[in-house]
């Protein structure tokens, strides 16, 4: 055999062997992924509806793939029995009261069987049947969606009527939306007033703020009252004075009361004047007479001033007054 031919055959042998090794490795890895080479045990679950679960789909326990669906078969009453092939080491985690449900691998992924482990002590045995809960039927979901759709249609019709009424300015809301409506005007007026009030409140708040700032900065009377100790003495004196004035006022009011009591009494002169009307009339006539007499006396005195007998006396008096 030529050397060249031998080399060719060696290369061919290497190429072929390597190809076969890669193939076998691929087969092994795929097999191990599908639990072909590992020891498995079987479990069954009966569902009302498997929602398109297929042979070969995954079986998950707590989010970990622990096996595959080996078979899906319809049996009595249209129920579906699913044969699960589970990795042998995982059965200790699956209890007798475990439940199987149909789930989905992602939002749009394949269907999977999801097992909830259960909480009793007894573990699942080979060929046991797991409790199952069937997923909500798609038809049921469609029915619910249909009901929701009908309700929505009814609601939109009502809303349409409502909006039409509002557009026409009917009802309280319609009138409110109408620019010329009474409610609308009232609301505008109320809003304007509210605006005014807000401005005033804002101003008051600003003043209050300013006052508080002054107070915080140690300005103003209140702060002085709080901090200046000399004012305490002044205040004490003032309060003492006020007290004394109050006492005097009380004494005065008592005296005044006595005076008033005496005035009301006819036994003294003033009381007689105030209470006896006949006496008062007589007194008035007397006063009138006295006034008349006084006028006449003034005239006499004036006449005496011009008399030569008394003229010298009056001049001397005037001179003394001037000095």
């Amino acid at each position, binding site marked *: 055999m030529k050397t060249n031919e031998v080399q060719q*055959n060696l290369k*061919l042998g290497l190429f*072929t062997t390597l*190809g*076969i090794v890669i*193939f076998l490795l691929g*087969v092994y*890895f795929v097999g191990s*992924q*599908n639990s072909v080479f590992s020891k498995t045990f079987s479990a069954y679950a009966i569902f009302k509806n498997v929602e398109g679960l297929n042979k070969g789909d995954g079986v998950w326990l707590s989010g970990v793939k622990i096996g595959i669906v080996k078979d899906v078969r319809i049996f009595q009453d249209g129920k579906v029995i699913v044969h699960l092939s589970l990795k042998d080491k995982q059965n200790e985690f699956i209890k007798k009261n475990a439940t199987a449900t149909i789930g989905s691998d992602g939002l749009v992924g394949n269907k999977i069987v999801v097992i909830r482990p259960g909480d009793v002590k007894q573990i699942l045995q080979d060929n046991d049947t797991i409790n199952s809960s069937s997923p909500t039927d798609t038809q049921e979901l469609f029915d619910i969606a249909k009901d929701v759709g009908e309700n929505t249609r009814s609601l939109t019709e009502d809303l349409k009527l409502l909006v039409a009424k509002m557009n026409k300015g009917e009802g309280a809301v319609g009138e409110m939306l109408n620019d010329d409506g009474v409610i609308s005007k009232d609301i505008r007026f109320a809003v304007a007033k509210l605006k005014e009030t807000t401005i005033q409140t804002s101003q008051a708040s600003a003043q209050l703020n300013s006052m508080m700032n002054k107070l915080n900065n140690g300005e103003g009377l209140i702060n002085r009252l709080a901090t200046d100790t000399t004012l305490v003495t002044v205040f004490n004196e003032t309060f003492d004075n006020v007290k004394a004035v109050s006492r005097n006022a009380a004494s005065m009011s008592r005296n005044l009361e006595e005076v008033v009591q005496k005035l009301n009494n006819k036994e003294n002169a003033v009381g007689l004047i105030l209470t006896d009307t006949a006496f008062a009339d007589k007194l008035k006539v007397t006063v009138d007479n006295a006034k008349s007499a006084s006028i006449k006396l003034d005239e006499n005195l004036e006449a005496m001033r011009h008399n030569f007998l008394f003229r010298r006396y009056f001049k001397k008096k005037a001179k003394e007054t001037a000095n």
Partner: protein
Amino acid sequence: MAELPVSMKKILLQAADVAKFVGKTLSYFVKPPFEVKEILKQCFAVGYRSLFLIGFTSFIAGVVFTRQSRPSLASFGAESWLPSLVSQAVVRALGPLITALICAGKLGSNISAELGSMRVSEQIDAMEVSGVRPFSYLVSSRVIATTVMLPILVIYADLIALFGSYVTVNSINGSSLSLFINEALGSITYLDIFSSIIKAILFGYAIGVIGCYTGYYATGGTMGVGKAANSAVVTSMLSIFIIELIVLQFVTFLRQG
């Protein structure tokens, strides 16, 4: 039979020739003596010498397919499905198809031209006269080589395409090799692998038989050789797609069953 049009008669006669040729090649698969040296020589030419071309195109196919598929999956947040999508596409269809199409172009034309030139230069006739079995030596050895080597080339093609995909996914997401392998191989079943290998065997056989048939019966001098090579490539490629469709139907039936 005499009432049939001439063209129809021609087609039927050619179909009968093809059937005979196919039957003969199949019988030579199991009928000794085998031309072992020639078979090994052809295997080397078909398999080893095609590896670089197949590997290079497969790597590019893996990279391109991954890059093209990623935006669609990313748009609904399913980027993590990329390895499983690529692996299924590569193992089920891309790997065998790319390998077969390249082999149809490279080997089909080569085999047809080689045998055609031997035929028009009357070398095959001379072999028959000298007692050498030209069918076993020339045809059977080439058909066996393509039939055996194509599945191996498909295995390499699948591996290299997946490697190209991993390089792309890793450069984008930085995902680890073990995660990629788990994701990629987790979605492949034995049915995928074996249907792919069976497809590759059928592709290899078709490429070998068509190349050999067109070359073995080439006529019309050097122009006839060119026509034979061209016919071999076109017919091989067409037959590859027809085989792909038939196998797909069969595998789908098995998958549903």
